[in-house]
């Protein structure tokens, strides 16, 4: 039996409460509030207490999908990544950098947002990057 607790930050709202995820044999099974994080000092709201529940939802996407003959169909990472990069490249060559646009995310990490805007700006050459800040 492999049991661990991992300190992390709640992914729901902008309070950013600290919490421990309880991990049993590779599955997140429970949430424990952290007492030493300054925002929440050992408390969580109902969303935080239940944050482990969506992680192993049967509805999670687990394989890349490509639309073939109108339907989304499972594909390998190799195929999906090559197809994605290839189509973006073709569109940039044909219609110019500003014909591409990117929506980054208030749900992914800082480092990931950084890479998305870096890709848009440095690789594609457009400032068409936005996210749901306004929503």
């Amino acid at each position: 039996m492999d049991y661990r607790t991992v300190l992390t930050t709640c992914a729901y709202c902008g309070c950013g409460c600290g919490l421990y995820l309880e991990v049993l044999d590779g599955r997140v099974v429970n949430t424990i509030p952290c007492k030493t994080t300054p925002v929440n000092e050992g408390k969580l709201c109902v969303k935080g207490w239940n944050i482990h529940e969506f992680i192993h939802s049967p509805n999670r996407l687990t394989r890349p999908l490509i639309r073939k003959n109108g339907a989304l169909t499972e594909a390998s990472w190799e195929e999906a990544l090559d197809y994605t990069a290839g189509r973006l490249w073709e569109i940039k060559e044909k219609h110019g950098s500003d014909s591409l646009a990117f929506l980054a995310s208030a749900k992914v990490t800082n480092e990931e947002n950084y890479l998305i805007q870096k890709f848009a700006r440095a690789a594609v050459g457009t400032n068409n990057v936005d996210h749901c800040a306004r929503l």
Partner: protein
Amino acid sequence: MTNSIAELENADCILVIGSNTTSSHPLVATRIFRAKEKGARLVIADPRKIQLALKADLHVRQNLGTDVALLNGIMQVILANGWHNQAFVDERTEGFDAFRKVTEDYPPERVAEITGVKADDIRTMAEWYAKAQAASIVYCMGITQHTTGVDNVKALANLAMLTGQIGREATGVNPLRGQNNVQGACDMGALPNVYTGYQAVNIPDIQNKFQAAWNAKLSDKIGLTIPGILSGLVEGSVKALYVVGENPMMSDPDVNHVEKALRSAEFLVVQDIFLTPTAELAHVVLPGASFAEKDGTFSNTERRVQRVRKAIEPVGDARADWEIMQEVSTRFGYPMNFRSPAEIMDEIARLTPSYGGITYDRLDGEGLCWPCPNKDHPGTKFLHSGRFTRGLGLFHAIEYKPPAETIDEEYPLWLTTGRVHVHYHTGTMTRNSPSLHAEMPEGYLEVNPEDARRLGVRRGDEVRVVSRRGHIVVKAMPTDRVEPGVLFMPFHFVESCANILTNPAHDPIAKIPEYKVCAVRLEKAA
């Protein structure tokens, strides 16, 4: 936020305006309750009788979209009684005379007519806020999601500067950011006009710095915001859209228009953890990893950068979004070879003055609040101490403007939207959580009992809500949380999607749509 969350409990007056704090930011509400226990005065300005209002010393219910008038009225009273902080105004601000001139046109009696708030209540708010030792303003989307959102925010800044309630412990103007990392996404330059740390794309020195660091030619042309991207897709000037972890098919106003835009895309990539309504329209769907499956950082609403730590391997064949992005970029012909998120943060720190001192080994304790310019800097608890970012604080003279859509004979009721405590944004995560789903499995419409009676609608009856953009069917919940003539709906539920109804008219500067006000009519569903 200009100040930190913990400071709130030391304020002796807190004005909460346009924030349903107990639902949307529960752990900020905790601090507000603590301040109250210590004797602070709590003033709530909200059209709905939200939970916080039950604890308030004063709750005023302004008509939807009349915040500027209300705030001008408060400031008129402060000026007329000489309760403002003249020393602060003289030393720290400019533009006072023009501001004063406009504000003097808003005596409480006139404001009462516009806002529906009693003149005496306006006087009380003015006195409590201005005379407090440390007064703090807390606001959220109820202020920003208007065609006058920027005006609303400027009016709040005027109020804080006028009374010197900023730049000190437990004061300030404190926006609560909705989503967990919306602060971070902005800080990281996920905006069309700035790189990381709000460095403008059209300033040559900054452009040159990033060109050298990234070894690429960069555009100095400001990019498109979401509304511009959507209309670009419809018109054909935008051909491809790459969406990471967002669900505009539910989150954006006038969903029918969004769907048309997304269907016009020649190529739509969606990277997410669930097959959202947006992903269903994609040409390629890439499975990302949840926060439990990767390392990284989030920046909370008080600018605190905190660690996200990997607890498990990504489920199935999912991959961390930073790894996916690197793979796409490398195959596109722009190689990226970061070995870890920690290495990415090192590059961010090198290029971003406000994150300059942030490294993973320093984040292990409580995290760090930016600005944190160097490795020895302890981070910044509250902003604007001694000096504003731009030097002198600028007063804005702001006139009240009514919302973009107002009620008429055909659409005689006001509709406003918001969140509930057990759900989050478009529900992608919370509705896949059995406990949260069980708490509130479906959407509902709050309607005043008087209006419900007139229509012959009882609790749980299905009603049709119709706006100029579309209609939905939802169950009615009669409650005095809303006043007669006003309806409220949460926007988390795809089956009764509030954003089919909302008005995409947006603020001219911030481009925020007016989610908080539109005109509708209500019918009994057949």
